[in-house]
């Protein structure tokens, strides 16, 4: 039988801790922890605990990334805004108008809040310090979903009634573009800018049924693509049209699905099942699940991380 050295070309390395020079599949001995370990590549992601929000809420808007995010508005009707630094949430200046069911896009330092309670068309721009009112949506609505930046956003779906209306933000104005194929609300959305978008799940029209349908926007039209594995409503998502995550549901659920640009795959669950939560993140590699109802309002934040290099301890 061939030895390890004959197969791999080296003897087993003796190293104090995780061996930084390890290559795919290489075994080493961790002399500090007295474990045999090896490294392998994986795209498996998990949820871990993030900082708790100061004000638990549902139906809020969010923007940003796993380590730098913004949370604003929500139910009970509030204008409160909180900023996340990767560890904790800090209250910052309020929205100009308190509302829930508000859409969000952008980053922690440059975000957009639009729509909300009472079919509002209000749009506010976050400078990193303050919210300033800018030009309204053409079609006011709540439960509006979106993806993009503070200068380039695609906004779609919403209520009431059920909306298929899609609008593109160019940094100054909203312009109506082609509708979703299926009008819906309580969906989730993702997108990098106003040239792409992903709308998934929600409650459709007609029928008022919870759906798994997913549509992708190519800068001109929406096209139906592969469905979520489960129907979902009042859940959340983040990412882009080619790399997204979906999580939560009503009734409350911890189920999470990952979009790779073609298919949805079930991945690791949230630790705390919930609904009507917020999400922030720019790809399925990392992001946040924020607050929501479980079924009581929760302050919990969970951080999604997808690991590419994993160290496996063989002697566990």
């Amino acid at each position, binding site marked *: 039988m061939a030895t390890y050295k004959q197969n791999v070309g080296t003897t087993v390395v003796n190293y104090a801790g995780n061996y930084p020079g390890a290559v795919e599949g290489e075994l080493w001995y961790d002399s500090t922890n007295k474990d045999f370990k090896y490294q392998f590549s994986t795209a*498996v992601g*998990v*949820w*871990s*605990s*993030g*900082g*708790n929000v100061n004000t638990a809420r549902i139906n809020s808007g969010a923007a940003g990334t796993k380590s730098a995010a913004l949370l604003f508005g929500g139910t009970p009707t509030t204008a409160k805004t909180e900023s996340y630094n990767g*560890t*904790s949430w800090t209250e910052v200046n309020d929205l100009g108008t308190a509302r829930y069911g508000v859409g969000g896009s952008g980053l922690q330092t440059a975000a957009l809040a639009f729509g909300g309670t009472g079919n509002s068309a209000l749009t506010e721009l976050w400078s990193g310090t303050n919210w300033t009112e800018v030009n309204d949506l053409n079609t006011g609505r709540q439960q509006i979903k979106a993806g993009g930046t503070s200068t380039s956003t695609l906004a779609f779906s919403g209520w009431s009634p059920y909306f298929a209306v899609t609008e593109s933000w160019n940094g100054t104005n909203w312009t109506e573009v082609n509708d979703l194929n299926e009008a819906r609300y*309580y969906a989730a959305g993702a997108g990098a800018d106003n040239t792409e978008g992903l709308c998934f799940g929600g*409650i459709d029209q007609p029928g*008022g049924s919870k759906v798994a349908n997913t549509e992708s926007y190519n800068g001109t039209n929406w096209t139906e693509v592969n469905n979520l594995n489960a129907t979902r*409503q*009042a859940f959340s998502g983040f990412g882009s049209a080619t790399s997204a995550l979906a999580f939560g549901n*009503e*009734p409350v659920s*911890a189920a999470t699905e990952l979009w790779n640009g073609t298919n949805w795959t079930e991945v*690791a*669950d949230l*630790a*705390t*099942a919930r*609904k*009507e939560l917020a999400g922030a993140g720019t790809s399925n590699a990392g992001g946040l699940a924020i607050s929501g109802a*479980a*079924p*009581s309002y929760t302050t*919990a*934040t969970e*951080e999604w*991380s997808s*690991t590419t290099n*994993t160290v496996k301890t063989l002697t*566990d």
Partner: protein
Amino acid sequence: MAKTYQYCVAENWGKGFIDHDESHRITFKGYPGNVWQVPAYNKHGNLWIAKVAGTVKTKDEAQAIVNAEVQAAQATWDAQTDEEKADPMNTRPSDITLEE
């Protein structure tokens, strides 16, 4: 029959409560009443309970805590107006049955 899960009560303090490595190693489930489920007879589950200073509960004790929380949420829901109850996103909180 050997149990599959163990339960504890611990308050989620936020960042670091469940860290990335712990989540990679075992599966956590949180329930109302700060009840947490982790695998039984598992080194990493035991280490996590110790880290969060969790109070270990039998399954029946944990179930009683969850039931009290769910029943309180159900009573709150029952007290709502018919209009509030008609909101499709406002379904009555369901009973939760913990696993052995």
